[in-house]
Structures are given as structure tokens and as C-alpha cells.
């Protein structure tokens, strides 16, 4: 398993090497050490490989990820897994703001807390946060799921479209056009499947979650809703 030391190898060289990997590459496991908060580590990868990073990463880690499995043994800065397309990103620590922003697919797992705007404008990504999420999470989220085992901050799901939000703890406040919805058996099955994929075992009872989603009042402009825009 190749080890890349970012004290020795430049970030650009690391990312170029990862970008150059094709489907049939011999090496499929990479170990990155000494990230020291550098930005854009393993961004833009499109290969079925595993990248494990030891330490804290900076902004945009794993951005635009396709197919790769990225594990961060530390915390992540702003824009983690931004615009992820597929694959899996697992951060063992906390994540800063805008984690999973605009993500189209794949699974993002955050063991700690995520900051504000988690899953903002999500378009199909599934996000599982084992701690809490900050304010304005899932703002204008269009598709996918945000599952929060802890609490959610202010204005959850503001101006949300069709993303599904599941929160086990408290929600400080709901944003415009976001409402609580019933949790059907079908939702529980979906939730169970995603939690299993995220490595959350049977100790978490899916019936403890509440589901939130769009009231669908703000889809089209209406004069009566002017205050809400």
C-alpha cells in the first residue's frame, strides 16, 4: 500500500497521481500522512480505490469524489465532500461548515459533529452525522437524505425541496417551508439501510427519529408567501 507523506510530496503531485489512476490500476489502497489542514486533499478522484488520511484535513477534502472510498482519521474543514458524485467518505472527527454541499450521490459519514449548512443544496447525496449539525443545514436541499443522530441547529431545511431529513435529537428551529412529517415503515426501512451502510448498528432504534421535509408551499412564487422568500 503506497504511503504519501504530504511533508515530502506536494498536494498537487498527490492529486495528480490519484487522478491518473484508471480502473485497472495495480494499487488500490493509498495512505496519506501529515495532511496538516491542507486544502483539496483527494479532490476530484474518479477510481474505485481507498484513500486513508491520517490527521486533520483542510477545505474541500474529497470534493467531486466519484467511486473512491475516502477515510479521514481526523477532522475536516469547510466543504468536505463538496459535490460528491458517488463513493463513500468517512470522517472520524468533526466537519466544518457546508459538508456534503451540492452532493449528487454517494454516502458521507461524519462520526463527530458537522457545522452549519451541512448538506446545503444537496442533490442526491446521503449524509449520516453521528453527532449534531449546525444552523441552516439542508438549506434548499433537493434530493438525498440527511440523517442526524444528535441535534440540529436553527433553520433546518430552510426552503427545502425533496430531500429527506431524519433527526433523532432536538431541532432548534425549522426553516421556511420545512415541516415535520410522519415516519412510515418505508421510511424506517430506508433509514435502517442507510444507517447500516454508515456502520451504525442495531443499538440505534429507527423509530426514535423524526422526519422532516418540504411543505411544498414555496415551489412557485406566490404573493402571499412574499415574507418567506
Amino acid at each position, binding site marked *: 500500500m503506497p504511503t504519501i507523506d504530504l511533508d515530502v510530496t506536494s498536494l498537487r503531485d498527490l492529486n495528480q497521481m490519484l487522478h491518473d489512476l484508471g480502473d485497472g490500476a495495480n494499487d488500490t489502497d493509498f495512505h496519506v500522512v501529515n495532511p*496538516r*489542514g491542507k*486544502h483539496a486533499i483527494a479532490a476530484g478522484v474518479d477510481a474505485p480505490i481507498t484513500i486513508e488520511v491520517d490527521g486533520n484535513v483542510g477545505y474541500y477534502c474529497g470534493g467531486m469524489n466519484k467511486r473512491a472510498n475516502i477515510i479521514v482519521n481526523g477532522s475536516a*474543514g469547510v466543504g468536505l465532500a463538496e459535490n460528491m458524485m458517488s463513493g463513500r467518505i468517512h470522517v472520524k472527527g468533526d466537519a*466544518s*461548515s457546508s459538508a456534503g454541499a451540492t452532493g449528487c450521490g454517494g454516502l458521507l459519514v461524519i462520526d463527530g459533529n458537522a*457545522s*452549519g449548512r451541512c448538506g446545503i443544496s444537496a442533490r442526491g447525496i446521503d449524509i449520516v452525522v453521528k453527532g449534531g449539525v*449546525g444552523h441552516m443545514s439542508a438549506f434548499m436541499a433537493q434530493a438525498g437524505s440527511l440523517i442526524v443522530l444528535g441535534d440540529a441547529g436553527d433553520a433546518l431545511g430552510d426552503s427545502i425541496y425533496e430531500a429527506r431529513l431524519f433527526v433523532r435529537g432536538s431541532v432548534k428551529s425549522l426553516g421556511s417551508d420545512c415541516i415535520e412529517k410522519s415516519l412510515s415503515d418505508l421510511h424506517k426501512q430506508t433509514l435502517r439501510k442507510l444507517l447500516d451502510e454508515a456502520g451504525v448498528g442495531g443499538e440505534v432504534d429507527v423509530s426514535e427519529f423524526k422526519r422532516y421535509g418540504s411543505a411544498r408551499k414555496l415551489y412557485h412564487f406566490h404573493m402571499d408567501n412574499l415574507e418567506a422568500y
Partner: protein
Amino acid sequence: MCGIVGLFLKNKSLEPQLGQMLAGMLGTMCERGPDSAGFAVYGSGESGHVKLTLRSASAKTNFAALAGMVEDAIGAPVLVETHATHAVFTVPAELETAAREALAAEDKTVKVVSAGNRMEIYKEVGRPDKVAQRFDLAHMKGSHGIGHTRMATESAVTVDGAHPFSTGRDQCLVHNGSLSNHNALRRKLVRKGMSFETENDTEVAAHYLTWRMEEGETLGQALESSIEDLDGFYTFVVGTESGFGVLRDPIACKHAVLAETDDYVAFGTEYRALAVLPGIEKAKVWEAEPATVYFWERH
């Protein structure tokens, strides 16, 4: 953009290394603010004396000769420490006004940028790592310090527009963001008798905090008040003689990472700025919550 770094030492044995640690942190934030840089260091202080940090518009100013003239005018010794275009004059506290008057009379190109028992402020236009080298930050000692790298948005790239801003004794402020109600607030503060040197939004915030504290609030309370009265995007880091505080606005889009160990509390706009510190691997690292005042004080 803009970058902020701050370091507050809990372990006194690290005080000789404060400058070196702060310089390392400041260097990592060059990309966030290549226009100008500045820093405040809380070093040694002699009771009954005040430190005046002077800045000259000319690199050729003979500060030793200037100090001699001030000594003659006030009739008391003046201790001088020169750092490139800046110098720290230590004068007896009761003669501060006389010393300021003598300085103003002797040399119009020299400005008093800060006053305090322990605080010294240095700032210059240019790349932050070069600015730190020029002033030899790496060899400065102290209990806490704050640094700033500026990418100008609200006013011109000048030394006057560089941070930190000081408006009160031993008080300084650095800011990442932009205030939208600074003109209205400046007018209000001018009516209360405060005078402004620049068109800069951060100077307004610094004066605002000074005003609140003059009204009897603690730094922590003054920061709480600013959540109500300041409009815009901001992360502030403030220093007082004994304390160090952090505040983000309620929207919190200007980044702020904190780290704490048994030895220090550190602030960085990005984690990269903290990654150079000793023991950071074991530190408690977290992101500052929106509209929440963080404050540490030496006892």
C-alpha cells in the same frame, strides 16, 4: 478573505517562544491576506510606565535621537526599542501626555499607534511572512498575541487600514469580514466624542468595543452587545492586557477554528494556522459557534 491568528499562553514557561509560535501561524495565512499584515504582542510591562508604539512613515527615522529629544522635553528617561519602522518608547505613565505632545512637536512623520502597559502593535503593507521578518516577530516574548493578514475589501491597502486596530489602552481588535452599518455607527460614535483615523469598518468596531467598555462593560459583555449593534459578516479576535476573546456573527460564514491544550489557547481562521503549534495533535480542536462569545483571561 483575510486571516487571523491568535495565541494565548496558559503555560508561562512558553512565553519566550510566543513570537516564534505566532510568526509560524501568521506565515501560514499569507494566502488569505497578501496585502498587509500586523500583529499585537503583550510583552513585559513595568508598573507606573506606559509603552507607546510609534510608527514612522520613513525607514530612516532615528528613533534614538527622537527619544533623546522627548527625554529633554519631559525631563525623564525614555526607554527605546526599535523594530524597523516602528519603535516602542517606554515613558513614566504620568508623563504620557507630555511625551505625546513632544513627539507631535518633534516629528510629524511619526505616529503613536498604540499605548498600553504591555501591548505593542506592529503593522505594515506587504506579504505577512516578510512583515513578520522585518519586525523580528520570532524573537518577541509575551503572554499572548494576535496577528492578521489582510485582503482589502472595504478600504484601501494602506498601513492605516492594516490590522490590528487599537483604540484603547492595551486593547486591540482584528477582524475578518465586512461590516455593513459601519458608516452609521461611526457617525453615532463621533457624536459621542470619538475620533477616527480611517474609513475602515474594523476601526469602527474597535471604537465601538472601547465605548462599551468605557460605559462599564467587560470585554465579554461588550462583545455580547456587538451581536445586537453590528451588522455584517465578522469574526473578531480581541486582546486586552490580561485577556483574549473571540466572536463570530450569527450567520458565521467567516471561519474560525479554536484549539486548546494545557499550555495554550489558539485561534486560526483555518486549521492550517494551528497545525504548526507544538502538541496540536493532542489538542481539543473545535469550530467557534455562531454568536457565541469565547473569552480567556489570565489570573
